[in-house]
């Protein structure tokens, strides 16, 4: 059994930074995966990211990226590419945690061999729980890219007959019914 984690990372309170958790929850609501595949909304992990990735066969991270591309554009980054960055990229706290965690896992001999970042170019990172329209429109494409990656890793999955509740609780504005 292969151990694979699909991790949505990003801050759901900061606009398009929430795309990672959003995509992973939508994916889990629409597909069932073979044993060994975990899907997690990890928020904005720092060095404790190691605990989630140690000993995996493959890691797929879904996250917003700032790469100068048009909002909603999807770009994949491989492990070698990620590790080329300096570990002191502490200006954006979780990108260093992603890189530092990978480096630390390497040091401990527990780094997954396959690491792919599914990056979705964001537009706005202001405090809001909503995605900007171009980024929201990229969700289905991001899911297709992840499924292709799983295919290439020889991982089985099937589509649910009906979408389960993705529990994107933050998207509902000001809940109701207080007795």
């Amino acid at each position, binding site marked *: 059994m292969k151990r694979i984690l699909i991790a949505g990372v990003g801050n759901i309170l900061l606009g398009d930074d929430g795309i990672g958790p959003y995509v992973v929850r939508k994916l889990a609501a629409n597909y069932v995966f073979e044993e060994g595949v975990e899907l997690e909304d990890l928020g*904005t992990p720092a060095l404790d990211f190691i605990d989630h990735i140690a000993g995996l066969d493959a890691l797929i991270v879904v996250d917003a*990226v700032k790469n100068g591309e048009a909002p909603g554009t999807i770009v994949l980054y491989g492990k070698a590419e990620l*590790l080329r960055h300096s570990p002191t990229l*502490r200006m954006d706290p979780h990108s260093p945690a992603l890189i530092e965690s990978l480096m630390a896992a390497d040091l401990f001999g527990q780094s997954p061999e396959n690491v792919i970042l599914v990056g979705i170019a964001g537009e706005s990172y202001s405090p809001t729980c909503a995605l900007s329209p171009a980024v929201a429109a990229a969700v289905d494409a991001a899911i297709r890219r992840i499924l292709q990656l799983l295919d290439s890793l020889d991982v089985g999955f099937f589509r649910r007959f009906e979408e389960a509740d993705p529990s994107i609780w933050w998207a509902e504005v000001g809940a109701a019914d207080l007795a």
Partner: protein
Amino acid sequence: MTKRITIDPITRIEGHLRVDVEVENNAVSDAWASCTMWRGIERILQGRDPREAWLFTQRFCGVCTTVHALASVRAVEDALKLEIPANAQYIRNLILINHGLHDHTVHFYHLSALDWVDVLEIPKADPAKTSALAESISPWTGNSRNQMKAAQDKVKGVAASGQLGIFTNGYWGHPQMRLDPNVNLLAFSHYLQALEYQRKANQVVGMLGGKTPHIQNLTVGGVSNAINLDSQATLGLERLESIRVLMDEVTSFVQQVYFVDACAIAAFYPDWLRIGGGVRNYMAVPDLPMDAAATTFDLPGGYILDGNLASVKPFQRAADQTFRDGVTEDVTHAYYEGRKPLHPWRGETVPQVTEWEGDKKYSWVKAPRFQGKPMQVGPLAQVLIGYAQGHPLTRKWTDKALDTVSAVSGRKATIHDIQSTMGRHLARAIRAAMLSELATRHWQFLMDNIARGDTAIHNNPLFPSGEIEGVGTHEAPRGTLSHWVVVDGGKIRNYQAVVPSTWNASPRDNAGTPGPYEASLLRNPIADPEKPLEVIRTIHSFDPCMACACHTFDSSGMPHATVRVL
């Protein structure tokens, strides 16, 4: 000649902090701490259901998730004057304790030890001597020659590969790195082992909270862990026993490794027990309530002014009236509109962006004040406040730490020495040792209470039609955290979080009084302005976490961490 150093950002901390210092005659003569990022996410909470606020607040920061969740439910419960069942207190306490143990361990080994430990000196160590040294100061079973040798081989491998990986950008070979190669190896071997034990502590958080990093078991009014000793699906005997096993392992590591290492490193850098004191007003809120009504606490709170331990004033309650009335936030030097210091319930967060101007506005962090004064918060504050009140557990571990430091250094260390950069590390280790004892104690409280037949976990919140206000406090790993909520007709009208790093990273206030980071940097020696290791040591000793940052992967590949010397 005055030199100006800008460090943007400080490395190995969770957040985005900028520090500017002026250096004269090889010492810091002035300092400014700024947060370079907008911290206005509390506004998202306006209009929402206060029962769900904690789900949002635990997303403020990826590291301090549980602490913001807890402070939030406590704030709403305070507004409702809602008591929670004893079981709920103990379950929450166990989560807090284990989160704290995880957090302190990671901070010491993975975020700050390498400020003191020179990794590239390790190949020169003698694993047999390192092992003998380790076994002379601790009964820990992970100190064998073979284990030291394996740790050394790891470093040799990294050094030989030419790819320093996670060790890129350390200040290796800096004149302030003064440990013997064997001590460097000892600390590094524990750096490797610490990873496993911080994970065990975090596992306990997950077993009680349902998941990490975002726990799911809180409710306004208690917790949602159904208790049934005979069931595996609920919080039963089997799970409680597994939790106990994990906690015992973590306790051994904390008491026999972390605590001992912190004392040893302090003993080998005795001058750093004299550097970096700064603001000597200290504050901590009482935490780990021992009963449903939260009338007694296992961690004492209060405040100390001007470093005078005899002046200590206790806080009797979690949100003591003195605390409620005493907190304001000043924005004179922060990028927000307004002149007058405001109480958090009336707090406003309207940005007013300018350039960085040291004598005007220069930070996104507001300046919180207690009775108009800057306060240092964190484990040091908590240890001093407990010690000054004669709290037995605080005395026990503090005296043990001071004795160990004295024995290893051959120089008598006193309680006043811990008001320093190294003292903050020591205080954090003291607090961790205290928490490790309290873990067992609160586990037993929970077991005993269940054994008495009490399985209550939740009291139902009822919201009145008018306006109510509450404050939820928590003595978090980084210090005093408070969430301030105003609820109107069952909906949130205003929400402000005054976080520990806001107290410590505070800019100057309207009187020009600097905050704790700024004050602590004064008179720090600077051996080499191009490599300001001393500044980083003092800042890291606070365990900064800016809790505000936007988290996005930047693929541009530009070197972000910059040190500019002008």
